[in-house]
């Protein structure tokens, strides 16, 4: 089973994402950027889902740190502001996919399925 990390400080949303994905993926959670980074360094994930705005370390900062270590893991950013400027700098920093909030859980499941299949 493919392994996915969900990092979002908004617990209701995180729970919804876990509920949506847990049938098909091994899902782990992180409540903030710091915990996310620690888990990423200790585990081998197929996909990391990062919220853009998180306390301690933002999604962008986590992304930057991850890419210093490795380029292999796919990263999906959850952005609340679907602004192109943000996306562009995230792409430059090594993000692979985006989904803007609010999103439909079905859409997310489809996208995650597609990403991990490739």
């Amino acid at each position, binding site marked *: 089973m493919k392994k996915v990390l969900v990092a979002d400080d*908004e617990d*209701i*949303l995180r*729970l*919804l994402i876990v*509920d*949506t994905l847990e*049938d098909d993926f091994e899902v782990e959670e992180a409540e903030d950027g710091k915990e996310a980074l620690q888990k990423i360094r200790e585990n081998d994930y197929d996909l990391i889902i990062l919220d853009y*705005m998180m306390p301690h370390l933002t999604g962008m900062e986590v992304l930057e740190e991850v890419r210093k270590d490795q380029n292999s893991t796919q990263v999906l950013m959850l952005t*609340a502001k679907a602004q192109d400027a943000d996306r562009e700098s995230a792409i430059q920093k090594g993000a692979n996919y985006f989904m803007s*909030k*609010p*999103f*439909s*859980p*079905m859409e997310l*499941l*489809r996208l995650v399925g597609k990403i991990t299949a490739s």
Partner: protein
Amino acid sequence: MVPTNYKKMLANRMEQDFSKWQIQQNIEEREVYRFLHTLKGTAGTIGIMELSEFCGKQLEFFTEESTALLPVQSLKPLMETFTDFFTSEQPIIEEAARSSEIAPVKESFVLVIDADATFAASVKDSLEERGISVVIALDGKKGMEFFYTLQPQMVLLDRNLPDVDGFDLVTQIHEAAKNSFLPIAVISADDRIETQIQAMELGATDFLAKPLNMSFFVPYVNNRLRNQKEISQGTLYDELTGAGNRKYFNHVLLQMTALAEKMRTAFTLVLLDLDHFKAVNDNYGHCAGDEVLRIFSQLLMNTKRESDYFFRYGGEEFALILPDTKAQTASDLLDRIHSAFAETAFSFDDSEPFHVSFSAGISEYRQKQDALVSMADRALYQAKKNGRNQTLIYERAQDDFRRHLNIIIVDDDSLVRKLVSKQFSGWKPEEFDLRIEEYADGASFVESEWFKPEENYMILLDGIMPKMDGLEVLNHVRNHYPHENIIISMLTSRNSESDIVLALKSGADDYIVKPFYAQEVVARIQRLTMRMFK
């Protein structure tokens, strides 16, 4: 348990945030910004689009990085607006939560009877966005059927109906729901004052002119539902029969259980159900049906001992709670009632006199036994299976006999099938053994041997499928199988009103618009099935 209720979680957290705000005098602007920002994303994702959009608009008034202090007092109106978003999601009262096994499904249904499907669909759309469930009937006959089976908390109807005069329905519904203060709104393009006066005289509570102003309509419905809820929670007796109502039943049952546990006494519960009651309604009309319910209740109230409690449990189902009574004593009492009722002959509009019988199930309280209702229900079910018109005492061996509820999902989208069946898999109803079946297309469903006459079915049918589309499947099922055990809900895409009309006219009971949120669909289906198969 029930699927995760994200909405409730969100409402709770919001209340927590607000109570934190209220003990402060001022709040930093950026904190309000963050609150709105988070709420926008979460609300939208869990399916409350309107709230999400509202947050989006409010965000324009606040600055992201500002540390300016805002007085909390000035945010009061905003906070109240948010709280209002969740008021249709009334918290389940504590009493019901403790006895979840017997708790009736409490949320509201609004019944819309209107031949104009486009209009009805738009009403359904805007109310369901606010968490108010709507069921549509396109003609008077279906409307009355829903009125009796679903027992809605509000009725909206147009005068112009294809089969009957809508005003006749107002009279009938008003008569049946007399004194329960059911809101009945007539909605009509004909807004002459004479029409309005007539509607009021017949018992309508409101008159609304078409086209509706939606910004008024939604708060209006909320207002009426709130009143209705307050009134119905204030009463303990069923208006039609004078028996205790379900709320009173729950209360007495809890009280008796507590007493029995403390005093080590016994008591007995009896569930009674009129046999073939649907046939009475079908053959003699719903007014005759009501009369049968009244006379039956009268008989019970005259026969029972003073210390016994008698309730209308719902529809044609009744309950007795007999303090200090063993099951066998209860059974003797029931025998007397069986023979007295057998001597009661009914006749309506000069019809041939006819008789009605009932079946009953008895369960006796013993120490620490919380499934009393479901045991009586199983005994009742067994009595029905044995040929009706009899009373049985629950015995453990009867555990083999359980009612079956089959949820069938026919959809070519495997994701939809998976999400819906996953949400259902956590549901463990006391009353039913649940089985979930999935079919990837209409043809394979129709060709399978899915039907057993003794069981109940809830079919979720996708409108557009390869090989055989949903409408064909719908027609097939309605033409080849009995109606009463099968509820059909169509999954349709937004803006396909002609599909909706066709589906409802072809015998669908309900429809759900795609894309949907699995947990909401499941909650809706649970309520529909619990009401229609009770």
